[in-house]
């Protein structure tokens, strides 16, 4: 630093001449592989974890655990969720307990689950939330699912991915049963597709418990590592401190040599000006592991029905046919689709069901919407990716009013979690905007057997209006999310809960209280089918065909609802015909890709000038959108969408969603 002083003085004194040159790229902050930046921005391909890689990761984890004197359970997954190995050290705690650290009552709070399942979910979270452009950990997930963002910052709205923990579930109809894994459960209606390839379920959904990281080779995301041993499956409530997290430390030991490129880690990525957490343990703090590394004991390799086998498996190359996600090009944009093992698309574009006399979405229209959204994403400035000014990468679903998937596409290198979440979002918007939603929600309530299924319809109607969910108001996912927070207005600590959520712990007279593991309607809808197939707590040992009661709801909410932004309902002449759901980038970007993509402006840009309404495209008439509703609390209203600042790359346009 001393050497810089004269330089600065000189620079300052020579200021008759204006300074020139601007800042270059930044090196990143040493939470990943600082030596290497492979420049992967979605362009890298071909990497996968070999059996030897998995073995090395486990051995390093073992050595790290021994160094800390702990007995851990490890899981290594590839990028599409294939469980490559689960390994429990001798004496590792066999179970762990859900704890949102809020003393909340109800839902999954206090549920005891096998440590192996926790480790799989943690590893899967690292793999699913990340991409070549961003490395997110379970600690990142913890930061973005709580009642305030940042957690602990009072009066700020909830995390941007509030509710995402209830996705990638075993009951989802889009995740695929792993036929290569040991099986013991009856298949129920669960997908058991040709070859059994494709994105897998994570047994506990996405995890917020520190100790799960993505794994990289040559800058390409190849999977995730999860470590569980402390008996608490929780989250980080206080992000201002530096946690001492042995689980995280052991996971980092395991990941040595497979770190994310330093520039891609969450701490270099700012969401709304706030940088994201990656790890409270820095790689630089790790000690040298003793050589040789401890040998694995093959008897400690865990066989988890539906997830793993007795032997260590190699990961698949992401984007190869084996991964179930095949690369292609759509509307000139590098994209990908979900495929069967023979390469045929799982979700070929099809027409939606008619709504009374109104025709459903046609194949041309669905393709136009997918094109338009994909192109909007390709223009959009990514909010969660590095390097800066790369395009947003998302998963895109179009569903009809009955929740049937009409078409799917995704940007190459979009994070995998968005496949399930975008479908949840699309279905949520379609369902809540349907005039029969009130009746269906009441009906499904009678059929739940575990816990109390509150009269959510009545609560919503008390809060909004007596005709809610039967009046055809258009709810975007952002609007539903506003109602599904433990405070209304979202984030205002001390306010009463939104009508689709539960009272915050400490509220007098509340028998059940909110936590990230007890989110209200979202969890109630799926509670019965969430964990029971895995033997937790105890229930029929079969994989369900749907996360909700399909006898009432059909496919309408088959993989559960989602309560953070990124979808809009679709209309033809004022009649609801479906919805489009987006997931994978920032929530404002997801909103814009859905809303702008479905708009006249977006469709025209994509060259589809002949589909959709002349003014609105497929968007809801302005007068029936949820943001027009008058609510009880003064000066408040629901949001419909929020398009981001400086949304497009190579353009200075602002407020691009104005008037659409």
């Amino acid at each position, binding site marked *: 630093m001393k050497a810089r002083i004269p330089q600065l003085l000189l620079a*300052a004194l020579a*200021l008759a001449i204006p300074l020139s040159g601007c800042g270059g790229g930044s*090196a990143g902050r040493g939470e990943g592989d600082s030596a290497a930046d492979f420049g992967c921005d979605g362009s890298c391909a071909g990497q996968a974890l070999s059996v030897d890689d998995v073995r090395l990761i486990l051995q390093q984890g073992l050595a790290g655990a021994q160094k800390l004197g702990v007995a851990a359970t490890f899981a290594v997954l590839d990028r599409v969720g294939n469980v490559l190995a689960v390994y429990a050290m001798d004496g590792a705690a066999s179970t762990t307990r859900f704890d949102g650290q809020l003393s909340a009552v109800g839902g999954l709070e206090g549920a005891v689950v096998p440590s192996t399942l926790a480790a799989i979910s943690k590893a899967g979270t690292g793999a699913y939330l990340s991409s070549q452009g961003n490395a997110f950990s379970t600690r990142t997930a913890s930061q973005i699912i709580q009642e305030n963002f940042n957690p602990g910052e009072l009066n700020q709205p909830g995390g941007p991915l509030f509710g995402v923990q209830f996705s990638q579930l075993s009951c989802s109809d889009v995740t695929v049963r792993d036929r290569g894994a040991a099986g013991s459960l009856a298949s129920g209606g669960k997908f058991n597709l040709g070859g059994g390839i494709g994105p897998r379920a994570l047994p506990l959904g996405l995890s917020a418990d520190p100790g799960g990281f993505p794994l990289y080779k040559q800058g390409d995301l190849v999977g995730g590592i999860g470590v569980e041993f402390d008996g608490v499956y929780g989250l980080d409530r206080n992000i201002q401190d530096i946690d001492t997290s042995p689980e995280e430390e052991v996971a980092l030991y395991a990941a040595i040599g497979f770190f994310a490129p330093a520039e891609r880690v969450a701490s270099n990525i700012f969401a709304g*000006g706030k940088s994201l*957490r990656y790890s409270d343990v820095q790689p630089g703090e790790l000690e040298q592991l003793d050589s040789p590394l401890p040998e694995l004991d093959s008897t400690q390799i865990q066989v988890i029905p539906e997830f793993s086998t007795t032997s260590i498996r190699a990961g698949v190359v992401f984007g190869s046919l084996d991964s179930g996600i095949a690369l292609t090009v759509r509307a000139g944009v590098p994209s990908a689709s979900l495929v069967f093992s023979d390469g045929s698309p799982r979700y070929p574009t099809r027409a939606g069901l008619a709504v009374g006399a109104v025709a459903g979405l046609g194949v041309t229209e669905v393709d136009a919407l997918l094109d338009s959204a994909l192109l909007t994403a390709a223009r959009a400035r990514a909010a969660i990716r590095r390097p800066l000014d790369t395009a947003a990468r998302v998963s895109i679903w179009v569903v009809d009013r009955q929740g049937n998937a009409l078409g799917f596409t995704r940007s190459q290198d979009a994070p995998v979690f968005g496949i399930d979440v975008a479908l949840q979002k699309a279905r949520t918007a379609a369902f809540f905007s349907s005039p029969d939603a009130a009746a269906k929600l009441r009906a499904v309530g009678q059929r739940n057997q575990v816990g109390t299924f509150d009269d959510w319809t009545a609560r919503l109607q008390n809060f909004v209006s007596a005709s809610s969910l039967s009046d055809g108001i258009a709810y975007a996912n952002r609007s539903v999310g506003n109602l599904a927070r433990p405070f209304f207005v979202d984030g205002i600590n001390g306010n009463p809960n939104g009508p689709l959520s539960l009272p915050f712990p400490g509220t007098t007279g509340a028998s059940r209280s909110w936590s990230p593991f007890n989110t209200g309607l979202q969890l109630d809808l799926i509670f019965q089918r969430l964990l029971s197939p895995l033997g937790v707590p105890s229930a029929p040992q079969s994989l369900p065909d749907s996360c909700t009661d399909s006898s009432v709801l059909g496919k309408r909410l088959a993989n559960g609802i989602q309560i953070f932004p990124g979808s809009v309902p679709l209309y033809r002449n004022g009649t609801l015909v479906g919805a489009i759901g987006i997931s994978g980038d920032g929530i404002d970007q997801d909103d814009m890709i859905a809303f702008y993509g479905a708009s006249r402006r977006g469709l025209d840009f994509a060259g589809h000038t002949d589909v959709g309404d002349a003014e609105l495209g497929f968007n809801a008439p302005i007068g029936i959108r949820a943001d027009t509703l008058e609510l009880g609390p003064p*000066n408040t209203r629901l949001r419909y969408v929020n398009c981001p600042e400086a949304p497009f790359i190579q353009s*200075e346009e602002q407020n691009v969603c104005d008037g659409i």
Partner: protein
Amino acid sequence: MKYRVRRAVKCLSDLTRSRDWFSIASYICLPNFASLVPPLCIMTALASSLPVLAEDKANQAQSETRQIPGQDARPTKFPPFVYESIPNYETSASDFVSVPDRWRQFYKGKFYDPYNQNVLKGDIPVFGAPGHEWFFESTIISDTLLERRALPLPVGGPSTNSSESTDTFGERRQGIINENLLTSFSLYKGATSFKPPEFEFRLTPVFNYNYVDIEETGVLRVNPEYGNTRDDNHMGLQDAFVDIHLADLSERYDFLSLRAGIQNFISDFRGFVFSDSAPGVRLFGNYENNIWQYNLAWFSRLDKDTNSGLNTFDSRHEQVFLANIYHQDLPIPGHGISFSVLHRRDSAGDFADDYDNNGFLVRPAPIGDERAKNISTTYIGLSSDGHIGRINSTAAFYYVTGSESHNPIAGQEVDINAAMLAMELSYDIDWIRLRASFFWASGDHDPFDGRATGFDSIVDNPNFAGGDLSFWQRLGIPLIGGGGVNLVNAGSLLPDLRPGKEEGQSNFVNPGLRLYNLGVDFELTPKLKLINNASFLQFDNVSVLRAVRQDGSFDRSIGFDFSSGLLYRPFLNNNVQVRVGASALVTDKGFENLFGDRVLFDVFSNLILQY
């Protein structure tokens, strides 16, 4: 006794003869360089010098000692009557009949008349034995502001004011009413303006009312249920000090004083680094016929009320230690140079999170990883002010070093190494003043490298390149989409990404600024002054903005800031002042990357009434 009085008269005569008004004012409020209430000081000086001026004028013809412009000063010799006119308390009892004491010679006894001898204005002692009189001085200033403006605002997050708010940027219009009622009470022992007081107690409570009206919710207060207007009020104690005259150091009343308590202090001519009303202890004085002036001070800052900017009684957890020295006539007569060293320790990071009155987090700053921090910095500054021939010149250079224990943008501890340079040249042609100025604050070139090279002040309030008339300095602009901080705060030049200038902590990972300014001031009539400025602004380095806004396309240029201000003083004094101002920011690419491309403006009118 006689000797002391003589000295006082002599001293003031010297000053009035040389028309050195700065020095006169300095005797009362030196060495503040400028004061919270400059008119207070100047008026005190003016009012108290009136008798002497009258006396002076009456004897002008006889005086052979008067300095003639353009010639060297003549040796000072007072005519004998100057001494003779002063009553001798000890011997001439009969004089009491006609002239009770010298304070009452022009006394009319009307408390509401500040233009004549007035007991409320420190013209007549309120108690004390002869030679040990105590004076009471009061001032009341009403400062009323009406303002309309347009600047970028976000739509609310979880709720909005109106439907169809589908984008991040909302309606820009704002209306503001602000009233400050400043009352200042001073009790001092001494001989009014004849020499520095021996003791002074001063209390300045300021009463504020403010009202803001915008078109978005969740901005004025964090909870959108409060709607889109806000009214608030506050009483702040801006002065509460005792001033002790420790010693006279020379025949010419060079002195040493100690001031303890809440006091206003500005650390350089233009307020670039530290300008605050804070409790502290300050040792100050002058030497060698006022050629040297110096300060040695310690301040422990108070937190400010969010919406009035006035003092609260809570600690800001920030200590400032400073020493400065000023030399007149260096290197040439009419030009002074000041050297200063300031050390600041901000330990707010050791205390609980702090939210402002509107419910927004201010410490730690809601940006980056939001972890708490302490700051330790040392500033070394050189500034100059004066004229060289007919060219007026002001310049300041500061270098700052130190560390932030954890910068939230950098996500780590950072070593600070930054600089600032300001220069202004002006030239008077009769009633026209032409000005050109340049300002540079270094920007950070890599937010993640552990080195912080963005310049930030402790708390600045610069009077430079248009000051509060200019758009950039007058208004705080929220860094929408970049955390709960402001790009630039009201009353500051620096785009330092603090959540508030007063309540927020300094941040040395910032984009810095380059400002190129041209100005022209017209003294249209003695009562009417028109001040015009045009500035071109650029960020020094946009790396930080790129990171926090997750946007790699930022351009450096902010835009053109045009402003005009009209100052009208109908009675040629400060008792009634009307200020009217208008400014506009014509945005350029860098600003448009941040907020869009619409012209932003501000118009205000300001009525100041003073008693």
